[in-house]
């Protein structure tokens, strides 16, 4: 059976695992709210992870590395905007170009710069404890004892939420992504907004990249850095209905699933119990969110989203089961334990897509007729 310490450690690790997903999703939100589809998040993260690592190694400062990573992201974002707006490349293909180029450039220069000179990393960003708050049981270690980019992620989620819905910039961004012509007719420079927002979005992906090399791994190795997290971030964004706080919640489910995978490889938890918890949590939160969107968007007053509530309840039972009954030991290959996030993504995207509403003008070039 599992105790409180295990859960605290697990939920804390989950937040760390969720960080690049949330940052990636916010990258997508920034771009897409203004009308530019960004499926190049993966490539932007990869480039920034690489550039950030080099920046840190050559300057011997992790913080300079973070800065380089973020700036690299900004350049990548601006590049996507340039392709989409100036050169009218189909935005999904533009993102694919970025992903392909990122793989090529990082692996080529990784050989030339890192392997040939046998560069090694200079460690990772230190853990920061917020005095007093960090001592609160359970919540303290999870929220107030973290590395800096994780903190930044939490702050940025709320900053972006407020900025998007309560400031002139946010209002203009949303207008540009929904109805660019309307924005244009009241004197808002549509494409200028899109350049700005996509560049900011690139910076978010850049921070996610910096997280990978400078806060999490501490080194750069071609081919194993991003592992599709840029794409999972997209699924997070879609299922969070292009809202930063929803993205945080959904990314956290993925984080839990990831963290459990880590604990499993360490072999200190019961496999079946873990799978039950992950699948259960996914069903619980997914079902609840789904039910909520259904309920809020309902046309018929008496219609209750029964299926979705049942899904959530079943999830709750599965999460609680390991704490109540003894779960037998099993031997599931570790490759399978990594599957839940992918399957979860498919389920979320397939299940929610009818209920979410993307910015109406995304993917379309805005031209003055």
């Amino acid at each position, binding site marked *: 059976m599992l105790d409180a310490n295990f859960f605290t450690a697990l939920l804390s690790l989950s937040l760390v695992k969720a960080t690049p997903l949330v940052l990636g999703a916010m990258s997508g939100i920034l771009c897409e709210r203004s009308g530019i589809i960004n499926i190049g998040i993966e490539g932007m993260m990869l480039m920034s992870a690489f550039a950030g690592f080099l920046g840190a190694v050559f300057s011997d400062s992790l913080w300079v590395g973070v800065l380089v990573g973020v700036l690299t992201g900004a350049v990548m974002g601006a590049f996507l905007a340039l392709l989409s707006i100036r050169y009218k490349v*189909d935005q999904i293909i533009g993102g694919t170009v970025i992903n*392909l*180029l990122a793989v090529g450039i990082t692996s*080529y220069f990784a*050989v030339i710069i890192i392997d040939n000179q046998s560069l090694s990393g200079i460690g990772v960003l230190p853990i920061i404890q917020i005095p007093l708050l960090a001592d609160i049981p359970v919540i303290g270690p999870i929220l107030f004892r973290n590395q800096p980019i994780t903190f930044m992620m939490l702050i940025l989620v709320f900053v972006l939420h407020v900025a998007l819905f309560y400031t002139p910039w946010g209002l203009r961004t949303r207008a540009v992504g929904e109805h660019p012509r309307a924005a244009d007719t009241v004197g808002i420079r549509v494409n200028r907004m899109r350049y700005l927002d996509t560049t900011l979005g690139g910076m978010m992906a850049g921070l996610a990249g910096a997280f990978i090399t400078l806060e999490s791994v501490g080194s750069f190795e071609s081919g194993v850095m991003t592992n599709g997290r840029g794409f999972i971030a997209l699924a997070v964004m879609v299922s969070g209905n292009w809202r930063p706080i929803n993205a945080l919640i959904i990314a956290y489910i993925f984080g839990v699933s990831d963290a459990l995978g880590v604990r499993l490889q360490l072999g200190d938890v019961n496999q079946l119990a873990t799978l039950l918890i992950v699948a259960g949590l996914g069903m619980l939160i997914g079902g609840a969110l789904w039910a909520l969107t259904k309920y809020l968007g309902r046309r018929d007053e008496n219609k209750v989203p029964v299926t979705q509530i049942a899904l959530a309840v079943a999830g709750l039972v599965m999460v609680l089961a390991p704490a109540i009954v003894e779960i037998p030991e099993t031997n599931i290959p570790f490759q399978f334990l990594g599957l839940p996030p992918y399957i979860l993504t498919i389920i979320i*995207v397939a299940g929610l897509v009818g209920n*979410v509403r993307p910015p109406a003008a995304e993917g379309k070039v805005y031209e003055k007729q």
Partner: protein
Amino acid sequence: MTTETDASRGAESKLGLFSRRVFISILSIVLSLVIGGAIIALSGGDPIDGYLGLWRGAFGKEKAVVETIVKTTPFIFAGLAVAVGFRGGLFNIGVEGQLFVGSICALIAGYAVELPPGIHAAFALLMGALGGAVWAAIPGYLKARTGAHEVITTIMTNYIALRVINWSISQNGPLRLPGSALPETRRVLDSARLPSLTDTTPPLHIGVVIVIVAVFFVYWLLWRTPLGFEIRTVGLNPSAARYAGIKVERTIVLTMVISGALAGLGGAVQVLGLLGYFTTGFNVGLGFDSIAVAMLGSNHPFGVAAGALLFGVMDAGMKTMQLRTQVPRDIVVIIQGLILLFVAAPLLIQPLFRLRQVGEGEQVSISATWGGEG
């Protein structure tokens, strides 16, 4: 606002449009090679030496030429798979996974059953195509039923396929060659191997013939059959397709099935024609490169074949290049990315060479259905 006939565009001959496209593709390739050369030079290498190495690796000896042809084959299969998807309005990033599934299905069919030579190979190829088709049908079905965008779902099915296959060839995995220290599978029976036209290594297996048939088949399918008409109509305007009585959902699933079958067949040909078994790293990245191949070939089967040849040349040559000149082989990926960039953004190079703008033609907008509004 005012839509009046632009006569010059209306009268644009098909041939003129075609040759302009070809010209742009060639320019893209040249420009990418130049930039790639600059990168090599900047990072301390000798670009001319590097490209010479590449050339020698691809065309140096008879063996090199065979290798180039053999390497081109899977690019054609995968490129056709992507192109069929694009024509049907679907961005099938899952070709990578469908190739793997096709390989594995052909492998299992190749060692688990005993059949007479020839028939066995045909059966294994069929199973490979079937495997790819089924694996592609899942995201196709999800798209048709729920509107889940295939870009996300196919990327996820890629990871799932990869993980499951990695498990199956890991220690104690069901496909692992008993007693081997390496992550490799059992061998297919000789009766399932594709016959070779030469006795070189790699062999010039008859997969090369199959792929040529596939190129013509795809052309026939898309432009000479009612099903092809349906696929292209759905790709260009799903609303109009529905209006015209075409079953859009069914067509989406069928497009994915055909696309996946081509990818699966490609994977099967690789396993049955080359190694005779499957191992980690086999064909990795092929599915992604094929996106560039399809784009390079304007999603036309003949164009795909030409684009694939270019990729085959680079792939065959890069080993020699790295060996002889110390230029890392990953430069090829950069060049490929650049080619895709220039082909996808003709506006980037048009001003450089003062070209007239290419007409819209039958271009599919992939972004149109993002987020499930289709």
